[in-house]
């Protein structure tokens, strides 16, 4: 009896970062049977660790800082995208455009003062994204078509807004966002704060837990009378906030905003979420996992960079990594069921 309890407890510890939580979200694994995900992570991580440790200049404080800093911008958006994926809305293809518009709004409103500018930028990101969430949540709109449409609309707004030329700020109060604290850029602290907030939201609030339920089985959630629409809007609103934070940092970092400021943010964020092991079908995943995914991508890119590989190789490895994790997560979800 005690031994059985013990093994169960350790299994719970192994699978869930938070054993006090009575909803072990990524559950489904029986004790003592290494799932394909475990195997895949060992196969992937062990060589990486060896490779990393044997790489010259990898184990330095500066390099650690560089890794964290490079993970921050994409990471913040990816944390928000995690909620949207968990709630079952798959992905948004309007991220880059939204971040760009937020960045422009932030720079243009600098004359109001730093805090009002930040608030306006946040509201802008939240509203733009939550409206899309409402269409997905209340109308069951297809998120891909919807976000392509939203991407066009927001992109058009950005072009119209800027007249196609870079937007320059009226004051340079925003440079505080480029400061470093204890050797780390502020964006890293923002990433950590957003992660903690998202984790708390998902695990400790009614809405967060309902996101998992809605994402796993929308029909069941509807039949049970759960507020599917409201929960979906909340997830998207949080996502919008995260995009806005990224936009603010992007604007501060570049000190100007062009139409192409968002760059490849859309797909980079999705890649980080997927590498974290969140399933695109929804209902599982966590903010901590996504943080791990973003860091892992960052570490791999860093190792490849230090070893002299090209950017192309970094992207190639990232793509293969996403592919392997997607397959492993899928096998783990379906095994034991079929």
């Amino acid at each position: 009896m005690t031994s059985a309890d013990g093994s169960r407890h350790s299994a719970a510890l192994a699978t869930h970062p938070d054993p006090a939580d009575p909803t072990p979200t990524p559950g489904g694994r029986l004790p003592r049977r290494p799932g394909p995900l475990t195997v895949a992570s060992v196969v992937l991580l062990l060589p990486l660790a060896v490779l990393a440790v044997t790489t010259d200049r990898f184990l330095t404080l500066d390099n650690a800082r560089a890794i964290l800093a490079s993970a921050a911008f994409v990471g913040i958006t990816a944390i928000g995208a995690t909620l949207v994926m968990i709630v079952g809305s798959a992905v948004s293809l309007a991220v880059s455009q939204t971040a760009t518009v937020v960045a422009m709004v932030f720079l243009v409103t600098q004359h109001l003062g730093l805090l009002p500018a930040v608030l306006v930028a946040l509201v802008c990101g939240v509203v733009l994204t939550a409206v899309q969430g409402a269409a997905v949540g209340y109308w069951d709109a297809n998120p891909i078509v919807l976000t392509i449409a939203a991407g066009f609309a927001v992109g058009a707004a950005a072009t119209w807004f800027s007249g196609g030329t870079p937007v320059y700020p009226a004051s340079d109060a925003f440079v505080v966002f480029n400061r470093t604290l204890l050797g780390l850029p502020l964006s890293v602290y923002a990433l950590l704060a957003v992660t903690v907030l998202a984790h708390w939201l998902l695990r400790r609030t009614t809405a967060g837990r309902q996101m998992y339920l809605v994402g796993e089985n929308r029909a069941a959630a509807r039949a049970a009378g759960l507020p599917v629409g409201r929960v979906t809007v909340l997830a998207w609103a949080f996502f919008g906030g995260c995009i806005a934070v990224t936009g603010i940092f992007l604007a501060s970092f570049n000190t100007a905003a062009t139409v192409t400021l968002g760059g490849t943010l859309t797909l980079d964020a999705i890649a980080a979420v997927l590498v974290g092991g969140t399933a695109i079908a929804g209902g599982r995943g966590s903010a901590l996992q996504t943080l791990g995914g973003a860091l892992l991508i960052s570490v791999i890119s860093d190792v490849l960079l230090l070893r002299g590989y090209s950017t192309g190789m970094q992207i190639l490895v990232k793509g293969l990594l996403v592919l392997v994790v997607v397959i492993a997560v899928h096998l783990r979800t379906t095994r034991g069921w079929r």
Partner: protein
Amino acid sequence: MSRAWLARPERLMPVVSLAVVLAAFVASPLVSGRQLELFDAYNALQGFAQLGLLALAIGITMIAGEFDLSVVGTYALGGMLAVSAGATSPLAGVLAAVAAGAAIGAVQGGLIAGLRIPSMPVTLATYIALLGLTNVLSGGLSVTYPNSDATLWVDKTIAGIFSPRSLVTLGAFLALALLLGGTRLGRELRAIGGDRRASRVTGVRVDRRLVGLFTLSGALAALGGALLAYSYASANPDPGLQPLILAAVAALLGGVSLAGGRGAPLGLLAGALSVALLAQIVVTTALPDYSTQLLYAALLAVIVAIESPGLHRTVDRIRARRADSPRRYPCPKP
């Protein structure tokens, strides 16, 4: 054509969008103040050639209820391979590109059908990996294509408005229209997209069809990329997401639904032509760039509204409430 023929969205959407865009194209001199020339039509068809095969590649996967994001990656790789393998013989370059595209598609199709994984994350991963591969192959820079004869040939004017490139693209649409319209494959594809369980029960070989479909999609995308690279005399390692988005818009305007089960190559043709013509209109009338984007957004918003089940439920609910209100029962039965 009769009203019933037009009532189906896979016909209504492409017919209406092509008609509207054609009307706008013909009317564009009113804004630009310049007569339309044959050259404008040629340019529009060149735009169509650039987008068409990609739209066809993604469109046929959407008909089967899948979404192949990797087509842009295959598109870029196709261009890269054609440029490097086709320096002396352009045909060899095209063949290499098409073979590679087909192989990539077959592997993806095998994964998606065999493991029953949703296609989006798989093709997204492949897209990223292919992007990396083209960057590795090219060193991150555009690769120029030295064979200027081929470059001149693919864009040579034929009959005033066509070029070999646009004719090949048109040919691919027509060939696929014949294949899907004339054989059992067309209805099987739509059945797989419409109701996969029922397709299996009635005896459709779903897995086989999916592998074939992704192979074809990869080959078409690679062909499109190869032709584009010849035309530009260079291959771009990273075309960005824009071609994918435009191809998806063309497919959606062509009457294909992301939910699957709907659409045909001729509809896709109309969708791709609409998008290409629209781009040409913007060029000739010198409208601001964002006006196209706003137009796309509006068109897609209409599609979203038509295809949202929750919106239909809301409408049903309101109707039922209205039907209910006149006859409220005065008191409960004893």
